[in-house]
């Protein structure tokens, strides 16, 4: 028997601090599970209804992700029409002439919460501004606008600031504040559904589909890989050929096919994802097992008196390949999230009345043109965080169970 | 007679997890012209580092700490001469010139040291081109074939045309030696060439090497962990243990005095095993293989921990072993040994 060093081919590498990755992975996983249960319990009233296209009400996010429309006018009085009524003429000013408001105002507020805004005026020397038009209860104290909206002010409220500069010209900056009953931390989509509720509801597609895909890929793939490597007979070449052929078809096409054939049933699609992942699991387990079969380890185990079954499944797979199987399983979960999001985005997965992160991304795509970024950024963050969570979980567990790294 | 290579008080060390582990301590060695010198040392004795220092292939930090190496009569390494940066540069340049041209080396596993995806012929041509030799392809192949024939190889033509994985153990060894001798070096270093061979194959491999070296006036530096290789095939033997040269003796008079060499001799001749066989539980001085002192303490004499001689001495003499470092200079006739009590 030729002596071969026992370098086991493993997936991923110990790039990160051992306990750090595991802790991060576990926290993200538990958040996902919590969201799943939470959205399962609340069901319908999870998603609050509000005005459509509302930017996130958390001020930090709003500043980052939304530039409100502030229209500026130059006010001239028309002598001719002095008796006839409105003698003022508003001519539109665009941003390049002068910028009346340097900072961007908050444009949403919940009932009962104090709305305060300290405008930074763009004009050089000006006397202090006055509120030409404002909802009741809004007042100005030494340059700061404060206001507490009440329930019958729900909806859009216009605010107009009147300014005049040193040589007497009058300007007006007009923007609107949307008042809502509920608090929408991440804003709402076109149909007024709260984005945070949608994301929580969409999280149900992160754990369950992964279970289906992972179990198929790991159990069947692992079994085929281990058996074909251990017995190394005609079966081995046939199974490897099948794995090679399945791998030669781009994964997405298989998923499209199954999606269309099963009328977009995500659970069947996850079976397809399992089939797509099966060859890579099979190859990795097969090459690991081959390394053991080729040196004396198997023969010395059978000399001791272990049956073939025990040698393969306990001595080789359970003791040595457990860490690979775990990290492959977590990769399957991450891959199933990725596929679910992609096909739902393309309209072949989760259909509209139902909610998933892919659908949110698709909606977000169209609102991108209106520079409403929150509809894209938050679902994207949620997707990336959950995938990263599974990958860190895999890396952490792998280091924990890998005998080589002890 | 002029010396080929002389190493004087060479110190080499490596950083390993934090502290610097010194691997060679004041190693000195002389390889005279056209002579066969043997180094015997077990794993971790630093024999490979000694060889690599001659070729300038010691990698890692800090590598060579101090010492002198003289080739023929000019210094290729002299750490006392000038600043660290300068002597490192000179050392690098000079060894670069020597490698392959003047000094060549054969490592342990011949088959693994051949380029797997090139036929032997192609490797010979590549080696020759690397040494920017001026012979044409045909001359090189002719040169290679004659070398192989000298090593009584049945069908050199087939060997030249085939890949390493088509050759048997013996054939790949001869091909590997041929590549080493292609640049007609003046010093051949053989680093444990026989470690995976049984006694008979080892002997005829060493005979081949000996014959080639004497025919072509090449001095040989043979490194092995098996005393029998060195005893029968070299003129002068250096015994290395844990980075120290413990003894330097010539196998002709076969009377090494240092306890470590005596222990190795007894293992080779089998006396120790006979005694163990007679009474495995006895713990007289020879068969008592227990450790002296405790495991992780450093003593002056590197061999003190395993030395069976010191167990038979009085505690006062043992103190000498523990505290004063024996040096190689105390010698009787031409048999130098670094031990206080073995005279």
């Amino acid at each position: 028997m030729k002596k071969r060093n026992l370098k086991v081919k493993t997936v991923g590498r110990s790039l990160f601090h051992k306990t750090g990755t595991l802790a991060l992975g576990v926290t993200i996983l538990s958040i996902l599970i919590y969201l799943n249960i939470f959205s399962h319990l609340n069901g319908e009233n999870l998603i609050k209804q509000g005005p459509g296209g509302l930017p996130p009400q958390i001020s930090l996010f709003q500043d980052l992700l939304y530039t409100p429309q502030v229209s500026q006018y130059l006010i001239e009085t028309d002598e001719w029409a002095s008796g006839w009524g409105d003698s003022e003429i508003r001519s539109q000013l665009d941003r390049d002439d002068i910028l009346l408001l340097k900072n961007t105002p908050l444009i949403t507020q919940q009932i009962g919460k104090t709305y305060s805004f300290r405008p930074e005026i763009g004009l050089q020397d000006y006397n202090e501004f006055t509120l030409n038009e404002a909802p009741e209860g809004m007042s100005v104290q030494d340059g700061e606008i404060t206001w507490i909206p009440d329930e019958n002010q729900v909806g859009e409220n216009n605010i107009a600031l009147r300014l005049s500069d040193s040589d007497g010209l009058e300007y007006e900056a007009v923007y609107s504040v949307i008042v809502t009953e509920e608090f929408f931390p991440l804003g709402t989509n076109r149909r007024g559904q709260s984005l945070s509720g949608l994301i929580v509801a969409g999280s149900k597609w992160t754990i369950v589909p992964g279970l289906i895909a992972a179990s198929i890929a790991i159990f069947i793939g692992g079994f085929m890989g281990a058996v074909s490597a251990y017995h190394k007979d005609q079966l081995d070449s046939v199974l490897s050929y099948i794995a090679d052929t399945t791998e030669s078809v781009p994964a997405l096409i298989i998923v499209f096919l199954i999606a269309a054939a099963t009328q977009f049933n995500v659970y069947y699609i996850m079976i397809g994802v399992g089939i797509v992942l099966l060859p890579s699991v099979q190859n990795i387990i097969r090459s690991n097992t081959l390394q053991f079969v080729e040196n004396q380890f198997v023969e010395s185990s059978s000399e001791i008196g272990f049956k073939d079954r025990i040698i393969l499944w306990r001595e080789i797979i359970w003791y040595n390949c457990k860490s690979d199987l775990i990290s492959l399983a977590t990769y399957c979960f991450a891959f199933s999230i990725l596929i679910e999001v992609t096909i739902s985005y393309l309209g072949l997965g989760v259909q509209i009345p139902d909610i998933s992160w892919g659908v949110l991304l698709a909606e977000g795509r169209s609102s991108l043109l209106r520079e409403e970024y929150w509809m894209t950024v938050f679902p994207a963050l949620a997707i990336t965080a959950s995938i990263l969570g599974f990958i860190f979980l895999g890396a952490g567990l792998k280091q924990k169970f890998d005998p080589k790294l002890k | 007679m002029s010396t080929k290579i002389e190493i004087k008080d060479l110190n080499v060390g490596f950083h390993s997890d934090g502290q610097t582990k010194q691997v060679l301590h004041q190693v000195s060695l002389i390889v005279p012209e056209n002579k066969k010198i043997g180094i015997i040392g077990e794993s971790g004795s630093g024999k490979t580092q000694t060889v690599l220092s001659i070729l300038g292939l010691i990698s890692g930090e800090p590598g060579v700490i101090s010492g002198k190496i003289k080739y023929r009569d000019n210094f290729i390494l002299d750490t006392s001469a000038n600043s660290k940066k300068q002597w490192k540069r000179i050392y690098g340049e000079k060894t670069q010139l020597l490698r392959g041209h003047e000094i060549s080396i054969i490592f342990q596993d011949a088959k693994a040291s051949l380029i797997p995806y090139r036929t032997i012929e192609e490797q010979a041509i590549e080696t020759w081109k690397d040494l920017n030799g001026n012979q044409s392809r045909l001359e090189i192949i002719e040169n290679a074939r004659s070398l192989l024939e000298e090593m009584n190889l049945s069908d050199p033509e087939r060997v030249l045309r085939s890949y390493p994985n088509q050759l048997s153990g013996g054939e790949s060894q001869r091909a590997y030696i041929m590549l080493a001798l292609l640049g007609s070096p003046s010093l051949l270093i053989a680093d444990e060439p026989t470690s995976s061979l049984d006694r008979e194959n080892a002997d005829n491999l060493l005979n081949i090497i000996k014959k080639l070296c004497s025919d072509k006036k090449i001095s040989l530096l043979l490194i092995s962990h098996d005393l029998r290789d060195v005893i029968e095939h070299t003129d002068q033997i250096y015994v290395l243990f844990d980075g120290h040269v413990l003894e330097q003796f010539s196998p002709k008079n076969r009377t090494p005095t240092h306890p470590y060499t005596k222990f190795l001799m007894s293992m080779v001749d089998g006396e120790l095993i006979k005694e163990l066989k007679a009474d495995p539980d006895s713990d007289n001085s020879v068969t008592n293989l227990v450790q002296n002192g405790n495991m992780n303490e450093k003593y002056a004499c590197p061999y003190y921990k395993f030395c069976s001689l010191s167990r038979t001495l009085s505690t006062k003499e043992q103190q000498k072993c523990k505290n004063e470092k024996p040096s190689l200079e105390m010698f009787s006739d031409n048999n130098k040994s670094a031990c206080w009590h073995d005279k």
Partner: protein
Amino acid sequence: MLKVTDLKKAFKNKDGTKVEILKKLNIEIKKGEILGIIGESGCGKTTFLRTVLRLEEADSGSVLYNGVDLMKISKNEIRNKIRRNLRYVYQHPEASLNPGVTVGKSLLNTCKLFHTNELEKKVADSLELVGLPFEYKSSFPHELSGGEKRRAVLARALITEPQMIFADEPFSGLDKILQARLIQSFLRIQKQRELTYILVSHDQSIINNISDRIFRLQNGILQQIKS
């Protein structure tokens, strides 16, 4: 104790020609002796050991162990009754220890096959017998040095209280000091447990001095050199 008569084994190499590795081997091994077999590498000494222990099927011949012909009985019978008495220590012990599990666990699993009570004690005894400190129970094979790995494999072979140990190149590739200590342990254990050793090696300096009887295996037959 073990009588081998007319053992034959031949290999078919690639171009179909039959190579006779073992031609009519006859040997009788008495209880408590150390039997040494010398042979060049590739002369078939490993095949001889494997065919006697039926790790490889011989072409013909019989192996009588306490009256039972190992060639005739079924594989299961061998696994349950014979294997525990005839143990085989491999040439490269690093490759026969399960790298994914601690030394103690390997010993435990082996012990569980044949015994049911005092498993922990048996593991501790066998470790102590081969001279490995008890703490090595929880260390992994890749944490052990070359010599220590060989002792762990020996401990695994001894745990089932065998009567005969077949060892293939047990001492090769070790530093002389470790080699001496391993030989000493081998001899002490043999005295303590009245074991019979069949040692196979190409290194005459050890075999000549350690074995009671020596055979040379050359072109398929065994000749006695020293009795």
